[in-house]
């Protein structure tokens, strides 16, 4: 799963809003999501497809209807790659700084 697709999907405010809606209430159908969006069903479907391709939403078929679930696994990959790594480095720098101060005193 390409990280480019995840960042591209997240770069759109409507798609972020869709993720927020699913976070508030998971497992919704297109119609329910559209009630909260100022856009056509076609536009919402396009955004949901982009989120599905990025694996940010998981889709389950219930009869003839798709249900959408927030899939936070790629967000965790981003967290670990782009935040966890730098945070560890920052903490190590802080640790080294503290050690230097203590050694000097």
């Amino acid at each position, binding site marked *: 799963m390409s990280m480019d697709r995840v960042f591209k999907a997240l770069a759109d405010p409507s798609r972020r809003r869709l993720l927020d809606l699913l976070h508030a209430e*998971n*497992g919704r159908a297109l119609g*329910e999501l559209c009630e909260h969006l100022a856009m056509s069903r076609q536009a919402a479907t396009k955004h949901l497809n982009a989120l599905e391709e990025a694996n940010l939403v*998981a889709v389950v078929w219930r009869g003839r209807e798709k249900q959408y*679930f927030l899939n*936070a*696994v790629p967000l*965790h990959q981003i967290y*670990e790659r782009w935040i966890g790594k730098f945070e560890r480095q920052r903490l190590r720098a802080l640790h080294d700084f503290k050690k230097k101060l203590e050694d000097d005193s």
Partner: protein
Amino acid sequence: MIHKTEFVYVTYISTTPEKVWSALQDAEMTKLFWGRARNVSDWQVGSTWTHGSYDDPAVIDVTGTIVESDPPKRLVVTWQSAKAPAGEPASRVTYLIESVFGAVRLTVTHDELVPDSPMAQGVSSGWPAILSSLKTLLETGAPMPMTTRRWGAPPA
């Protein structure tokens, strides 16, 4: 409209279905990607399973029974927190392991949860980290640091 509390998580892993199946049950793997946990069962339908500390077998966090077992494709278990109030019904976890384009799509569905229960809240923060770390472990040989320690345990 009433919604049951349910979560669906999907991750694509460059590996084989057999490796994913065994990683879910192998304590030497779960200790790395699943918060230093151990899953114990004979994995036969009707058997019990427990999820607890890798280091102390007396510490059990989750218990349940095996509902379906079709290696290496599908595993369904019931899921009951050891701390759940008496009478709280068990939830259910379905692991679906599918081959797609030479990789594996792992879908974890956790449903029949009691809305707003501590377990329902824990699920939404726990599974993404565990599945993300499982993917990283199987693809790189090393897990993510945050899943190698027992969660909720006092710092060592």
